[in-house]
């Protein structure tokens, strides 16, 4: 059981980032290739505040979230009205900058030596109980994000975001100030990524720059694209099938020969790449497919159906 | 030369042409109609740039309904679109050279013939095609098509936006190439009067359907006005 808790924490973090990416890319069409930049900023800000300045974890997390939001706002202001390719490159570059920042400013981050130890946000006395509780908190946060994403399906704001993704010019012609909406939503969702990163600091406890390589961004992307970028549960399914299978099922339950075990993370990323190719070529909408359409949940629509029946 | 039968086509799921049939011999064939009638769509479809969703297309005895555009070009069909009909970043010489990829005669030979038709071009060879004026650009576009040594040339409103002087020159040039080079021409135009003066036969399209096909001489103002819904 205890062996499961840590990988499950990591998996939940990926799910959270995946749902946030679904909101940005799958719903609004913002191509954020710098997920790890935002989560990493949150992670290291939290870590630095807690370890170097002994700020209480909750306050550190709050500051990290706000700082990530502020940075996202400034970046968004500059790039969100450029075409999506430029957004992609700029966010990727941003995450690389965060990586270099963490690596080179070692007076603050301890660089490659590593920053530690970030404590768990709470301690109920017993380590394994605390860990389990922390996992439950993470799951609750993931669930909350999923509920939010699901509610958006039927909320005016959700329709607005879809309209921006599908045809921003048309959306503008219907009177929607699309740039402002994109900027606000990007800021909020990136801030949330920062918060998730802050919690991840506590999952990892010991922070090294290697946690901030672009691989994390692409793991989240692969999970989302595999599951279905427009679907609320796309990221969940995708994460289970990628990270879930490798980091949990194979890692813990499959007896891999030792000479092969070393290659496992490598083979894993190779297969992730192959998966991405196959999905885009053969099922670009992802495993969950297109959004199924339930009858609109509106009082009159339901009553009208009854009358007709 | 060209057999068109029950042709249906359009953009995405918008059907523009709803069953067009006509056949073309060695002649200048005019396609007339108001804007939105489907003239450009027809020519684009004939050049195989739009998917054919119904009917068939035969060129020089071969069924080309599913052919790729570059194969049709190699078979002797040249197409001059109404807009974006030159490679703007390429020089005039390069534009013409691309036309000369097809066929066996030397490029020099063909260029010489072309300069006889458009003497003004020889002075512009090093200029970028995108910087030419409307009339000169149109000459390069037609010139590029002629360099292909085609047996059939499709011209989509070549005189649109040209001054009357250029337009007249272009119309008489079309007559010349038909007479001297033996080219068949499909000429889409909105301006009926000048077109009918050089065409042998004409087809009036209205909202994607054939309104009338007749000898050019037989089309009077009344039937045109009716076809254009004027």
């Amino acid at each position, binding site marked *: 059981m205890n062996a499961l808790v840590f990988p499950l924490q990591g998996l939940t973090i990926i799910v959270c980032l995946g749902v946030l990416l679904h909101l940005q890319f799958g719903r609004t069409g913002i*191509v954020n290739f710098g997920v790890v930049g935002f989560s990493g900023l949150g992670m290291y800000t939290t870590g630095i505040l807690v370890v170097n300045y002994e700020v209480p974890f909750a306050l550190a997390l709050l500051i990290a979230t706000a700082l990530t939001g502020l940075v996202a706002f400034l970046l968004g202001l500059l*790039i969100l*009205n*450029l*075409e*999506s*390719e*430029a957004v*992609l*490159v*700029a966010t*990727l*570059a*941003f995450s690389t*900058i965060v990586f*270099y*920042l963490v*690596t*080179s*400013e070692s007076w603050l981050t301890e660089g490659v030596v590593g920053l530690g130890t970030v404590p768990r946000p709470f301690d109920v006395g017993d380590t394994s109980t605390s860990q389990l509780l922390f996992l439950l908190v993470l799951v609750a946060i993931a669930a909350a994000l999923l509920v939010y994403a699901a509610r958006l399906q039927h909320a005016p704001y959700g329709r607005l975001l879809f309209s921006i993704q599908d045809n921003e010019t048309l959306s503008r012609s219907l009177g929607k100030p699309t740039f402002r909406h994109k900027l606000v939503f990007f800021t909020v969702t990136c801030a949330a990524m920062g918060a998730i990163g802050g919690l991840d600091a506590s999952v990892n406890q010991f922070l090294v720059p290697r946690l901030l390589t672009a691989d994390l961004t*692409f793991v989240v*992307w*692969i999970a989302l*694209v595999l599951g279905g970028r427009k679907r609320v549960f796309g990221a969940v399914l995708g994460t289970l099938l990628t990270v879930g299978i490798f980091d949990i099922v194979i890692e813990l339950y499959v007896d891999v020969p030792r000479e092969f075990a070393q290659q496992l993370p*490598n*083979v894993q*990323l*190779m297969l*992730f*790449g*192959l998966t*991405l*190719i196959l999905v*885009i*070529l053969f099922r*670009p909408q992802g495993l969950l497919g297109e959004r199924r359409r339930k009858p609109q949940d509106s009082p009159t629509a339901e009553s009208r159906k009854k009358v007709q029946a | 030369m060209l057999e068109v039968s029950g042709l249906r086509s359009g953009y995405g799921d918008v059907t523009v042409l709803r069953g067009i049939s006509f056949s073309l011999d060695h002649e200048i064939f005019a396609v007339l109609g108001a804007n939105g009638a489907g003239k450009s769509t027809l020519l684009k479809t004939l*050049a195989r*740039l739009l998917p054919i969703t119904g009917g068939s297309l035969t060129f020089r005895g071969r069924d080309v309904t599913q052919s*790729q*555009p*570059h194969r*049709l*070009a*190699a078979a002797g069909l*040249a*197409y001059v*679109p109404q807009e*974006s*009909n*030159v*490679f*703007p*970043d*390429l020089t005039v010489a*390069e534009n013409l*050279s*691309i*036309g000369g*990829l097809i066929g066996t005669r030397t490029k020099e030979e063909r260029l010489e013939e072309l300069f006889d038709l458009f003497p003004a071009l020889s002075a512009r060879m090093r200029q970028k095609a995108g910087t030419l004026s409307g009339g000169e650009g149109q000459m390069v576009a037609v010139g590029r098509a002629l360099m*292909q040594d085609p047996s059939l040339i499709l011209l989509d409103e070549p005189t649109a936006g040209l001054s009357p002087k250029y337009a007249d020159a272009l119309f008489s040039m079309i007559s010349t190439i038909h007479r001297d080079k033996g080219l068949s021409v499909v000429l889409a135009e909105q301006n009926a009067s000048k077109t009918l003066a050089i065409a042998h036969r004409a087809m009036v399209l209205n909202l994607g359907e054939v309104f009338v096909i007749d000898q050019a001489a037989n089309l009077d103002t009344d039937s045109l006005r009716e076809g254009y819904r004027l």
Partner: protein
Amino acid sequence: MDTLIIGLIEAAPLVLAAIGFTLIYYLNGFINVAYAETVTSGAYFAILFNSILGLNFYAAIVPAALLAGALSALTYVAVFRPALRRGVGKIEMIVLSVGLSFLMRHAVRLFFGVDLYLFDITDPSYLSVFGTGVTSAQIWAMVLAVLIAVGAYLLTYKTTYGQQIRGLASNADLAATSGIDPTKTSVLVWFVSGVAGGLAGIFIGVFSFVDYTLGWNLILIIIMVTIIGGIGSVRGALVAGAATGIATAVLTNLSDPLYAQVFLLLLFIAVLRFRAAAARSVKTLMARS
């Protein structure tokens, strides 16, 4: 002076890679992240011929670069062309290329491991240029970079193939109706761009070492340099690619990569914002009456 010369030398492969990357972007209109692996493959092919098969370094360059070109053409035929035919969107094409990049990079790692490979250059003579010591390989890299740049320029501007490439890139429909076979021309472009990328990889390997992240570490800079350089014209990319490549290399030497990266990002955003403002008037060109 030192830093300038080192900058120039280090920029040479970068410029090569930028040329190759530009050709593909120019023709197919999408950012090919897997180009990183084309660069890497050139280096590994050369290592294969040089240190494993014992071929002279300069003799190894040729087959290695050709193989990199072939591999690049293969990725086009096997992955990208099918995707383009299926109408995969611009962003999805990039995601696809990221997938291919992962697959190739980690395949390389599977076969070659994480070891660092060094080229075996038999007579590394050291020369002094304006008082800065450089190796003959570095000089060769410069010379070859210049040659390839000139070659790429001549190919795109002085040959019929070049006309076809530029024609296809600027107006695909018109090119097809002019008789240009889009597939043949595209394969040629991917091959040439692969050769340029492969050479870039080889020389980066010469300057330091070869490992599986060689291309990946560079791809972001290549992408930014090329986009800043002005996609849409090979000529512009040649000139601006060279200028930005040198500037970046110099900057990287003067400060640490962090500031070079920040500088590049800011330059990237500034250039794109400026261009977007200009493009708005171009976009309105599409507005038909």
